[in-house]
């Protein structure tokens, strides 16, 4: 392998780490919590700018050719930590857009417009972050101790970036599988039901914005430490759409899908093709790439909206009804097998049904007319949906002659609906 090829591979590995981190953050927001954050790229930009101004010397250095706030010249881990914190902090004000009262698509448009505007402001206002020219000569981490141009350093950098991406994967998987992650999925699938069950939608959305923002911020910090420059042209609103394409193609709600999407779209499609020979007019390949990204989104949403690696369907067996049976003082108690509760993309959020019927033999059954034990009413597969709410799903019911049959269950179990 020539040196150029080695650096090309290193370059791809580092971009893979960065894009995986960013896509995992977006997957957590969009795939798991259902927050369509079209302004996601702002968080990455905030992390990159923060890491840059934390590691750069004061702006009077280098002849003062660029102007920026900060310039604290801080040692290595601080800029990356600062980038992650900045990504999380800048996500907080967005909460007021994704609060519960606004339609999801209106909020998404608000976030998109915010991304366009923040980019415009940074481009036009030079003193804070050097305007459209952007920041350059951003120091690489530990460049005093090591030579950033050496192959060993770059291999180590790509390893660190991939390790951070793996850490990000473990983090988001942990969060998604936790009860908190379950609340987020409930909010994504039906926010009205999640709200009525006492989930605080505003704080759930705020926290997922911050979590995704921190991952994006960290990815920006890692990226700027490697490419050493950061300008508004690197984070146009359309870059968010690339990440969305990655998450949608990989599989929204499945973090493995986000990793796969990150490798397929931003890395394989955008970075790896950077060095293919130019043809046609200048900029033609870029234009065609954007067209292809748009096509990928539309075609995938039509043909395979669940992505290459769909979200795993989670089946939760209903708790056994034995506890409820014991509490009923009856001669004979028949536990009707209750249904399984399925939480997934098609069956929306279902209220856990703990329904049992208790049968009690009565003493005054007229002999000859009524044969005790004969079933007079049988029903199976009872199902009733109200919009996205499954009030009753596949309940089985049997009423015997000469018995009093009761239907008990907690509030919201769907008792009267079963009677309908």
């Amino acid at each position, binding site marked *: 392998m020539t040196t150029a090829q080695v650096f090309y591979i290193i370059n791809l590995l580092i971009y893979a780490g960065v894009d995986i981190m960013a896509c995992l953050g977006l997957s957590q927001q969009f795939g798991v919590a259902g927050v*369509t954050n*079209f302004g996601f790229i702002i968080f990455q930009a905030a992390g990159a700018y923060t890491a840059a101004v934390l590691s750069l010397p004061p702006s009077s250095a280098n002849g003062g050719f660029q102007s920026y706030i900060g310039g604290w010249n801080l040692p290595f881990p601080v800029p990356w930590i600062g980038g992650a914190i900045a990504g999380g902090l800048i996500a907080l004000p967005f909460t*007021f*857009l994704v609060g519960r*009262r*606004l*339609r*999801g*698509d*209106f*909020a*998404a*448009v*608000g976030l*998109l*417009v*915010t991304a*366009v*505007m923040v980019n*415009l*402001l940074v481009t*036009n206002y030079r003193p804070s972050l050097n305007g459209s020219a952007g920041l350059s000569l951003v120091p690489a981490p530990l460049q005093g101790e090591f030579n950033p141009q050496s192959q060993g350093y770059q291999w180590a950098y790509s390893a660190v970036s991939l390790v951070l991406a793996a850490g990000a994967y473990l983090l988001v998987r942990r969060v998604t599988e936790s009860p908190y992650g379950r609340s987020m999925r409930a909010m994504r699938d039906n926010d009205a039901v999640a709200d009525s069950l006492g989930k605080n939608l505003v704080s759930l959305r705020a926290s997922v914005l911050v979590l995704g923002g921190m991952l994006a911020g960290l990815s920006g910090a890692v990226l700027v430490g490697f490419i050493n420059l950061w300008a508004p042209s690197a984070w146009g*609103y*359309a870059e968010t*759409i690339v990440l*969305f*394409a990655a998450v*949608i193609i990989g599989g929204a709600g499945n973090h493995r899908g986000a990793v796969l999407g990150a490798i397929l779209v931003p890395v394989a499609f955008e970075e790896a093709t950077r060095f293919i020979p130019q043809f046609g*007019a*200048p*900029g*033609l390949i*870029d*234009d*065609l790439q*954007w*067209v292809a*990204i*748009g*096509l*990928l*989104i*539309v075609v995938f*949403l*039509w043909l395979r*909206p669940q992505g290459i690696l769909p979200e795993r369907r989670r089946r939760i067996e209903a708790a056994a009804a034995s506890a409820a049976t014991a509490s009923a003082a009856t001669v004979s108690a028949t536990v009707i097998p209750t249904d399984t509760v399925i939480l997934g993309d098609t069956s929306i959020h279902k209220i856990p049904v703990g329904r049992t019927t208790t049968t009690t033999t009565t003493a005054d059954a007229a002999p000859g007319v009524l044969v005790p034990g004969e079933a007079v009413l049988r029903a199976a597969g009872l199902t009733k949906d109200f919009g996205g709410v499954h009030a009753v799903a596949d309940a089985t019911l049997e009423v015997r002659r000469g018995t009093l049959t009761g239907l008990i269950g907690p509030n919201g179990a769907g008792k009267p609906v079963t009677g309908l």
Partner: protein
Amino acid sequence: MNLFLASLGFGIVTAAVLAIAAVGFTMQFAVTDVLNLAYGAVMIAAAFIAYAVNQAGASVWLGMLAAAAAGAAGSVALNTGIYTPFQRRGSAPITLVIVSLGMTLIIEFGVQAIVGGTNVSYTMSQGPTVRAGGLELTAVQFVIIGLSIAVMAGVHGLLRYTKLGKAMRATAANRSLARNCGIRTARIVTVTWALSGALCGIAGTVLAINDGSFGATSADLFLVLILAAVFLGGPGQAYGAMAGAVIIGLATEISAAYITPSYKDVVAFVILLVMLAIRPAGLLGARA
């Protein structure tokens, strides 16, 4: 005072361009509930159709007619070919917004791949400068204002006094109820997208005329103005969009005179965010 009058003049012209675009956008949302973010991309694509006609030697106003036809055809194709199938399948509004962003990339960069990345201008004369009561505008700008007023009057007449307009309003208010009343809603939706697409094409051409030069990505920021005007008046409200366009047009241009011109779109953006946060149904806000 002169500064104020000059910026007022620019504001009226911007409002005129914006009103045509915003009414088209809001009509699409009204009948199909789609926030068609590809609207700006269609505008520019239509403006390039007008440019092709203009380059062939015809007047730019003839080109504008071609752009209107192209915008109508393109919008109908976009709705029946892309958005309606997604909606029929029961896709959420947010999925349609993502689809419309994908279509934005396809149209915008498809146009750029064809025409290249450099800006172009129409071959036309700006006409003599006209002074009226301190306002100083070119004849072309007066034509744009007159055209906008004519379009607004036409939309008003259509919605108020024709059977078609009544059917459009009924479809916008409640599509299934309208269908039960015997209105062919599918046809009404197609007609609405054709009309709004024609407005989109006209808006793209007059935007390009007013800006002087334009490229494939010129409508990115103008879309922010459209969205601000639409949300100010309440999405789906044609009259609201007209009022919103006047307010946004004047606010951006007058603030440009007193702050820095490069930040004039930020005013529209702030108005849009405040509206989204406080009154997403718009100032007139009947429909939530």
